[in-house]
């Protein structure tokens, strides 16, 4: 029986022991996750946190870029421009998503805990404000007036959560403040890949040009400080001497080659580049571009100057557009460097003779080839390592030209340092201050008047040509208040397909193609023109947000 008591005693002790240590037994803390209390301690922490912002960088990757503009007529009609966009229910997936703003504000609420010098801290505050400014600018472009949330808020911050929308101009004034901070505190030379001062200046120039011209053409007032800021920022970049227009002295190929570079780091035109390396980080853009079914519009093709610097409507060099072969004769070399023409190597020796209409390659016949190479290696799915621009020096030059022209301070020197540098690369004649007003452009932009009308119009043309497929066009139409350009029937036409040209194709390939009275390809046979509505300058606010917070009323014009 002795055993019995030994067993009982042991058991009771075990139970007693087990029940005593409950609190210690129940206290369990994360073993593999980082808690905010233990973070933001040093520079590495700040850096690691800020790294997440970089996925938000605007990359000029060409795929389906400018499909929402007069530049292109993709295979599928752009739904927003077609007026078929329906008001979304929830904010997620729209520009009304504030999660990135929260990410930035969380940093601003916590970074000061780090035990490092203020100048290092300010570098990362600068990065944060750079990205927050960009996100708010995007929100303003999409919605006009938006709630300006510039502090870290929680579910109890009712006044912020249910606040009103801040007027467009006021938001943009704050955006400019943030950008100025970024410019002031982000170092001139930053560690590999991180933002530097010139990246901040490039964004500032881009945002300020947009806002300055928006204010001017929408009659909002106070445009000068922004135009001036755009010009100042652009000039700082230009005066740094670090950047120049990429050229190897081959006007017929330099422009095209610039966009199929495997390494843009060190390229004089790259203020900031999105880089790719084999295996580590690759993209699929080259292949996508080859199969996009995309196409520039007739209107875009028409806007290229002839080699004499004159528009097609007046230049004696213009050979008409009865065939694509004729159309490229004596034109700005950038035509053949962004549109596939006879002799373009589609892929590894597959030479294009006729535009590949009636196939999945192009909708209009003006097949975009910016960023598109004939290299087999780049065509391999998800294996391309072609780098993309985030900020390209050419854009900075265009900003400087436009901002000074709008300010009325543009001189021939300005033009020579900006537009004419771009023209030099492709061997086009210089733009002169006394250039004649192109009546076609003047008709397109009736709001452009005054003594700089001719220059502004030509700068706008130059911008369209130089930045084709880089995703700027809709923003440009917006800030110029030029949405009406969408109505132009030529923006949804393709190449001319005369019966003689058509006969060169296998009949079954082109049998489904619909032509208009002048034998231009009608990409969308059901319509002869798109119809612009001014409501399309802004997106509607998601229904649920309007319901949750009545202070957001009214809905954007035209979407009620």
């Amino acid at each position, binding site marked *: 029986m002795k055993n*019995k008591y030994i*067993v*009982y005693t042991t*058991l009771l002790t*075990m*139970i007693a022991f087990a*029940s005593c240590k*409950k609190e210690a037994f*129940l206290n*369990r803390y*994360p073993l593999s*996750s980082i*808690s905010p209390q233990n973070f933001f301690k040093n520079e590495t922490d700040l850096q690691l946190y800020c*790294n*997440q912002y*970089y996925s938000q960088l605007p990359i000029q990757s060409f795929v389906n870029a400018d499909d929402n503009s007069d530049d292109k007529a*993709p*295979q599928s009609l752009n*739904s927003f421009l077609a*007026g078929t*966009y*329906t*008001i979304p*229910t929830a904010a*997620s997936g729209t520009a009304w998503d504030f999660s990135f*703003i929260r*990410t930035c504000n*969380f940093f601003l609420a916590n970074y000061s805990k780090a035990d490092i010098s203020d100048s290092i801290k300010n570098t990362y505050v600068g990065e944060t404000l750079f990205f927050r400014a960009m996100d708010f600018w995007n929100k303003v472009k999409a919605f006009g007036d938006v709630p300006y949330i510039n502090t870290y*808020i*929680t*579910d109890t911050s009712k006044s912020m*959560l249910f*606040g009103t929308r801040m007027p467009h101009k006021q938001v943009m004034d704050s955006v400019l403040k943030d950008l100025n901070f970024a410019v002031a505190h982000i170092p001139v030379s930053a*560690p*590999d*890949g991180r933002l530097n001062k010139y990246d901040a200046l490039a964004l500032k120039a881009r945002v300020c040009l947009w806002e300055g011209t928006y204010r001017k053409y929408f009659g909002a007032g106070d445009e000068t400080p922004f135009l001036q800021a755009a010009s100042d920022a652009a000039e700082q970049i230009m005066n740094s001497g670090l950047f120049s227009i990429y050229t190897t002295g081959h006007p017929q190929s330099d422009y095209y080659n610039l966009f199929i570079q495997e390494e843009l780091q060190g390229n004089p035109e790259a203020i900031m580049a999105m880089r790719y*390396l084999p*295996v*580590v*980080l690759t993209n699929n853009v080259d292949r996508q571009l080859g199969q996009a*079914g995309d196409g520039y519009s007739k209107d875009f093709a028409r806007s290229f100057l002839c080699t004499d610097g004159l528009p097609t409507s007046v230049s004696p060099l213009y050979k008409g557009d009865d065939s694509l072969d004729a159309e490229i004769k004596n034109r700005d070399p950038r035509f053949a460097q962004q549109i596939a023409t006879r002799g373009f190597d*589609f*892929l590894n020796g*597959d030479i294009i003779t006729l535009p590949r209409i*009636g*196939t*999945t390659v192009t909708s209009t016949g003006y097949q975009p080839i910016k960023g598109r190479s004939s290299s087999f290696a780049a065509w*391999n*799915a998800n*294996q391309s390592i072609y780098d993309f621009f985030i900020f390209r020096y050419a854009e900075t030059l265009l900003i400087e030209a436009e901002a000074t022209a709008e300010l009325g301070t543009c001189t021939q020197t300005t033009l020579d340092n900006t537009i004419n540098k771009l023209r030099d690369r492709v061997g086009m004649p210089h733009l002169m201050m006394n250039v004649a007003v192109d009546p076609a452009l003047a008709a397109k932009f009736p709001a452009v008047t005054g003594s700089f009308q001719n220059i502004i119009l030509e700068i706008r043309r130059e911008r369209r040509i130089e930045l084709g497929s880089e995703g700027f066009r809709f923003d440009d139409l917006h800030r110029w208040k030029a949405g009406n350009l969408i109505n132009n029937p030529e923006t949804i036409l393709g190449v001319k397909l005369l019966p003689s040209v058509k006969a060169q*194709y296998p009949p*079954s*390939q082109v*049998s*489904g193609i619909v032509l208009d009275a002048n034998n231009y390809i009608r990409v*969308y046979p*059901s319509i002869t023109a798109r119809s612009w509505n001014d409501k399309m300058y802004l997106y509607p606010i998601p*229904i649920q947000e309007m*319901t*949750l917070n009545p202070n957001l009323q009214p809905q954007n014009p035209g979407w009620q």
Partner: protein
Amino acid sequence: MKKTAPFISPHLRKRWLKTLLIMKFTALLILITALQVSAKTYSQERISVNFNHTNLSKALKTIERESSYRFVFSNDVLSDKLKVTIKAKDILVKDLLAQMLTSTDLVYTEMGNNLVGIKYSDAYYADKIIIKGTVTDGKGNPLPNVSVTAGKGAGTTTNDKGEYTISEDEDGSLTFSFVGFTSETVKVDKRGVINVVLEEGNNQLSDVVVVGYGTQKKVDLTGSIATVGSEKLDSRPLVNLGDGLEGLIPNLNVNLGNGQPGTGATYNVRGYTTINGNSSSAPLILVDGVQRDPNLIDPNDVASVTVLKDAASAAIYGGRAAYGVILITTKDGKKGKTQISYSGNYTTSRPTNLPEYVNSDGFLKLFNTAQRTGILTGGYTSSSPFTDLDSTMAAAYRADPAHNPDAYPDPGNPILYRYVGNTDWVKVLYPGWAPQQEHHLSVSGGEGKTTYSANLGYFTQDGLEKISKQVYNRITPNLKINSDIKKWLTVNLNMSMTHTDNNNSSGTVNGPGGSWMPGDLRPLMPVYNPDGHFSGQGNYSNPVAIMTNSGRDIDAANDFWTTGRVILKPVNHLTITSDYTWNSYTNFDKANLIPFNEYGVNGTFLDVFPWTKTSQVSENRQNNNYTALNAYATYENTFNEKHYFKALIGYNQEYQHYQLSNSLARNLIDPSLPAIGTNNDTKPTVGGTETESALVGTFFRLNYVYNRKYLLEINGRYDGTSRFQPNNRYTFSPSVSAGWNIVEESFLQGLKNTFSELKIRASYGELPNQLAPAGTISSSAQYPYIATMPTGTVGYLFNNQPGVTVGTPGLISPTFTWERVQTRNIGLDYALLKNRLSGSFDYFITDTKDMVVASQQLPAVLGTSAPPTNSADLRTKGWELSATWNDRILNNQLHYSVTLGLSDNSSTITKYSGNPTESLSDYYPGEKLGNIWGFTTEGFYQTDAEAAAVNNSALAGYTWVAGDLKYADLNKDGKIDYGTNTVTNPGDQKIIGNATSRYKFGFNLNLEYKGFDFSAFIQGVLKRDFDPNGSLVFNSFYSNEWNLPYKYAMDYWTPQNPNAYFARPRFAGWGNEQTQTKYMQSAAYGRVKQLTLGYSLPHQLIDKWKIQKVRAYITGANLITITSLFKGFDPELVNFGGGYTTYPINKSVSFGLQVTL
């Protein structure tokens, strides 16, 4: 002492028994001599002993210790009853033995080498006599197949005439038992002929049911408890336990997942009683008292399954039992002779429902029509439409495949083919039936103090997708040993292991999600290019190419469980049990991708197939350690014969430690060698998760029964969890239940012949729920009150490597704690007409209070979701009914039983503060769960003008034309829209159905006739609505041009076919894809889950071979389904939306054999 056996010569029998005994001796002898070859001879050894009422076996051990003698005996020889009392000094061992054995039936024999054998004397066997007799029912009809057992466990059964023959001690006893009759035990009393009349009726009153931390007589139960025995599971092949339980217990809802090998079932008791996204309505599932995954148990090992449905019966388990408890008990060894049984089956299966896609003609017609509509109306148009040439070529190939190509060079890109074939991919991928095998071997028995049960199960199943060569294996060895060491001490050990491995092809096509066909696999694509290479060209995933060329995904898991248990009985009526369980679950998943080339026209090398490039190996290791300690004491006594009293008090503590590490290396040096170490990857990926959780609980239960009439039970449990912060960590959950055995009342004595059981039960209980269902291991699930910052990488290069980043934490409420589930239950148990009819009825109301959900809906400017708090209530009401009728007819030759189970439940949100605007995209107060909001269809617009007259722009911005669907303008505002998508302003939507499964039924039929048995099981749902909106089966091009239409889609609107079922085809035709009355489906169904026909060889035949049972059977599963559901769906898979994204459920035919020695 000698008796004459009347029928068989006792000498003959004796000799036979002796032979057996000698065989045993010989075996032992060989063993022991082998161990003791060097033993010397000391035949005249003397020792001193002092045995006082010592067990004989212990005495012999003492002698062994003191001398060089060794004893050989079989355990049944030395029972505990034999005690010796001898005090002697320097006695010859031989003499000592003689003295010890004098008053027993035992004798000893010296076998040389100091070995002494101990066995029964010849006279012992002479005490057994042969008994013969007939068993009949009350009407004098003979009862066949009655089991007759003698005291030692030996047994036989009666033949067709009700006759039996058995040998037993002349003063022993025989037990007669038969399903549907009251068992009878009869003293032999030296009689040679014993005829028995059995009374009808089950011995249900003495049935014992497993409950929390113990067992209880069924008649004394006051909670809502249902139980199923192994007989319902043993007789047919089961992929997993869920397969066997589906439909057996009303309101135990089993979701079988899908038919992919290795897919487990999920369980639910009484409906979905929480809307907490971080929780689940999963019940607590305990196997032999510890929480385990029932999918890893071999159904053959299961002895019984008990479901504790109401709070009163589950309360003892506290914080994890809020949604019911399922107690699975595995089979124990039984005392008696060793029993060896084998069961095995071979099954071949095929999907219940294979999709039927359009052929190339249908595809092109639908596609081109959709394209024309898109162009015409400003809707979605294809970015890569088909040309006239495609149509011509496809038509030619279809008409004459022998003389026409199924691919031709693309004029836009001449190195690529355009495909114009006509492939039936379903036939290519699912060509036939898939085999599956199951074997189970069991050895059990026990002699003396120890019983054991050792089992080995093996299950193997091949995937249906032939080319993937998927094989799933499960091996389940286990061992249970129980030893009554002392009268007051019992020890048992339970060890069990499950090994599973699943070997499947890797690649993106048939990933672990069970997606089983690429969504864009058009019939136009042939399997091979004209030049013999696999088709695909990097644009399409050719599943045949991927599964043939890419690597394997091998997932292996080991689940090892050990439970040690000590049961003490220090004084009468008191039992103290403590057990400790240790579990280690390890899982290792290794997948590799092998790149392969793709070729274009005439074998031009195009590309390495992009989705399996780069070559890589990934390894995923999980290690989950779990320990549980239970200690509880039970006091049970009856005072004055009228007051039955039972009290339980106990302690429970559990701890779980989970580790996961994963690694991925790319750029293998030899891609065909899937080794993670042999890579050329500059930066292999590693990741990991580690979490812990702990739970403690103290509990008690009191049972009181007065005079078998009035029953009372009170439960309480105090729980603490690591999942909440210290201030909100503890909770107490009380419950009370009562019962009234009306049939025991004197005023009902007159009805006693009619009712053998009639009991009314009522219970109320409150259970806490600690969130996070079993198996969740993420940090957010284990530490929900602590905000953490996620880590990851960003697709941007810093110093030539993607940047590592630490993300933003979400919002966490500091206050949330246990949600509470209150259940009220009333029930009735009945058995009448001599137990021919029996069953129960329960009605319950469950209130789930303080569910942890997003406390409020906040504007998106917050930038994240609102933190969850205890802020919503839900009420679930339901009932369940079961009724069994069993009887015998045809002179007792045919035994039949019919069981019907019927259950229902539905839930309503009673409080929800998170949705002040009552948006339909969130829960709202008063919402019945499962409600489907949709439009009311008025048919098709028959003219463009009719369509143009209605403003449908809120639904779809394209121009609406003839052939699009016309919806009723319910709110007469002149346009069709969602309003503000709220309850008060739903636009033109209304509630058009409810997706909750209502009136679930299970119907069982069992027949036994002369060795034949037949069972049928039908299961189904009587009411359920299904909204096919969003399903790819239903919409030809639901979201874009890449979707693949089904054959049914051909019935679409054209001016010539104005009464079609489907609208005019559109790509992403959102307007026509609205949830609406026209396409509302009834997902009610009845499915014959299984039909089994078995035959057992008659005992007269197999007894000769000393075999207890031989049964062969054939089973068909899921062979017949009755449903009005649209053809493309399986009613059991509608949760998944149907279509090729879900692995289909199988129908199968099996052949099985069961043998017990």
